[in-house]
């Protein structure tokens, strides 16, 4: 099996879809000649041409607006927003237009747009290159929201997103681009070749949107997480030698409630971990869902470990990042409770 890092896996997904379907195009800032500031679209313009891998003006609202029109005219645009922190100028086109087009036209018009955007911190990007705004998009009905945690998932889910007839916002945890970062910034970086998720088939495959994945299994505790935090949670559980179900949510909307329910009914304890700020973050929905679905199995309160409710601070990056220590502390507390 070939080894790919997450950038290569995403590149491969786009390359394959550009080859398979003439309707697929890529548009975004610096994605064309240059191949993207993270090099995710490297080589795609050379191979598929300037009419299909398109550099855009710096106007996120314009990019999404134009992508919607392209979608209405039969294309399947992949729009890149250079950093998730810069998606807000496109928020109106996403929330008012893209998400609601099928509904308001009784299904007559649709725009199968995929929006790719790197999110999350851990690269010293400060508050304008580190945000995790996924929670906001999960409150917009009509959207699907995806965040992979491995190259294998990234490729399979991105292909599904492109093929999906509904709009998908696809978040890429940029700290995972080059390796399975477990939250320990002092350790030398580990490449994807050391991780099973770095084994990625060369060819086409897809993974279902709407399905979470149990990445570790155990009886004591359920951890709900996604993106970078999957690796942090795994490392924390291993260090504490806790037998935990670690569930990689993967597709935040629609949410795979069944997988969660099965696990929490088994363990009776649930920890939620995400990098985004805590207040009204996606973890709140996970918590509310667990209470509604598994109340009678719960032996302890559901706990959340999240980014603090402040902007992402440059100098305090590792204090801010919900790393192994905070996760371990919460795991231990949860096991002692109730």
């Amino acid at each position: 099996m070939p080894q790919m890092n997450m950038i290569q896996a995403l590149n491969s997904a786009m390359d394959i879809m550009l080859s398979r379907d003439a309707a697929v195009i890529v548009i975004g800032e610096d994605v064309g000649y240059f191949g993207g500031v993270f090099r995710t679209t490297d080589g795609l313009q050379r191979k598929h041409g300037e009419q299909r891998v398109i550099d855009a003006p710096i106007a996120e609202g314009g990019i999404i607006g134009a992508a919607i029109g392209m979608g209405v005219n039969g294309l399947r645009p992949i729009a890149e927003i250079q950093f998730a922190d810069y998606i807000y100028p496109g928020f109106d086109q996403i929330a008012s237009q893209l998400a609601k087009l099928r509904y308001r036209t009784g299904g007559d018009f649709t725009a199968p747009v995929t929006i790719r955007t790197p999110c999350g911190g851990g690269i010293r990007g400060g508050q304008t290159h580190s945000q995790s705004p996924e929670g906001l998009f999960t409150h917009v009905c009509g959207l699907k929201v995806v965040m992979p945690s491995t190259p294998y998932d990234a490729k399979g889910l991105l292909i599904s997103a492109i093929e999906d007839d509904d709009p998908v916002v696809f978040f890429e945890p940029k700290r995972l681009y080059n390796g399975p970062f477990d939250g320990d910034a002092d350790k030398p970086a580990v490449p994807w070749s050391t991780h099973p998720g770095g084994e990625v088939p060369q060819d086409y495959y897809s993974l279902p949107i709407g399905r979470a994945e149990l990445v570790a299994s155990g009886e004591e505790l359920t951890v709900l997480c996604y993106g970078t935090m999957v690796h942090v949670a795994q490392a924390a559980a291993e260090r504490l030698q806790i037998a935990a179900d670690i569930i990689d949510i993967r597709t935040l909307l629609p949410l795979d409630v069944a997988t969660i329910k099965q696990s929490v009914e088994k363990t009776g304890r649930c920890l939620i971990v995400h990098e985004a700020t805590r207040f009204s973050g996606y973890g709140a929905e996970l918590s509310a869902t667990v209470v509604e679905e598994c109340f009678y199995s719960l032996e302890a309160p559901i706990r959340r470990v999240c980014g603090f409710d402040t902007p992402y601070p440059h100098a305090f990056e590792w204090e801010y990042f919900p790393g192994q220590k905070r996760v371990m502390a919460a795991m231990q507390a949860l096991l002692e409770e109730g």
Partner: protein
Amino acid sequence: MSRKPSLNIPHPPARPGDAPDFDYVQISAAGAVERPEVNSSVRSMNHLTDDLVRVMDDEHAAVGPWDPQLDAGELQIGLRNMLLTRLFDAHMVRMQRQGKISFYMQSLGEEAISVAQAMALEPSDMLFPSYRNQGLQISRGRNLMELMCQCLSNTNDMCKGRQMPIMYHWERGNIFSVTGNLTVNYPQAVGWAMAAAIKGEDDIAAAWIGEGATAEADFHHALTFAAVYQAPVILNVVNNQWAISTFQGFAGGERRSFAARGPGYGIASIRVDGNDFLAVHAVTRWAAERARRGIGPALIEHVTYRAGAHSTSDDPSRYRPKDEFAAWPLGDPLQRLQSHMIRFHGWSEAKHSALTEELTDIVTGSWEDACSYGTMSEGPYLDHSELFEDVYKDMPNHLLEQRDELRRQLEED
């Protein structure tokens, strides 16, 4: 410093109680504005953003280089569609007053724009209308009954009850969905046109917004993308002088025309008498040829007047003189075309009355047909499960559950 600084606040020339005053509207004589070749450079046609392309003169004759030379049959179609639009609007405003529909927006005084433009474009061109472009639907032959069903949110509503009245769309007719959010259709139209170019198809797109809506971000997005990619699109600004209660000066019309925004992007831009059916037709055909031949996008400002209230929720007597429309220097588009046809194309008052009668019957007949699909007070009604359809292509679990919850609740009742 000569004076204490203060904010400039634009003022309309007249407020309730004042005499209407349209001196600020710059008007060219009919026939006076030169018509550049479609492949002329944008730089060479800057003056078209100050001038006003007009074809019909004060004696109702078609004069000058922009005369589209339409034959009597074409003109009759135009007149018919304008009149039908007006009668349709009048009927729907009445129905709203009677409580039969919840809301309405008429296009009174602006009918020439939609009707002439729809005629000047190809049926396969894609239209991205605003909420005041019902004339596009009518000109493309939409069954009025279907528009009415939308306004009634009944069982034949193409929007399945999900949208306020007038938020029509027509997939087979190549007319995109009206949305309540201003200007969002502009970059979408540009994207549609970009896709046409990418696919190597020669259909073009056209979009409409009001002058007030030009202040929104998407105006700039659209012009930038249209200019950079030279997208085959016509961007229309309907300057009807008012945006709800605010005068066009609040969108930046005090110092420059709205057409004047275009040349700064390198976009060919024209200011046209929006109440002159012939001028609108000619300018649109010119812009369409330009776009279709890949020469570039165009921006058209239609100078007109919003003769009615902003919507049925609005009361314009609070902010402008009641009799402004009568004083509007560009007149009534319907009357002007009618007069032209009477003088030059064998039309007559009698034919006009007969036509009015015929169309009135169509409108009232369509309304009756529409009501047979359900009204607000009497069924049949749409099935409640429609509430949950089409959020996604396939209904996810959480919506299935919510649908079932509602179903159970309604069964209990």
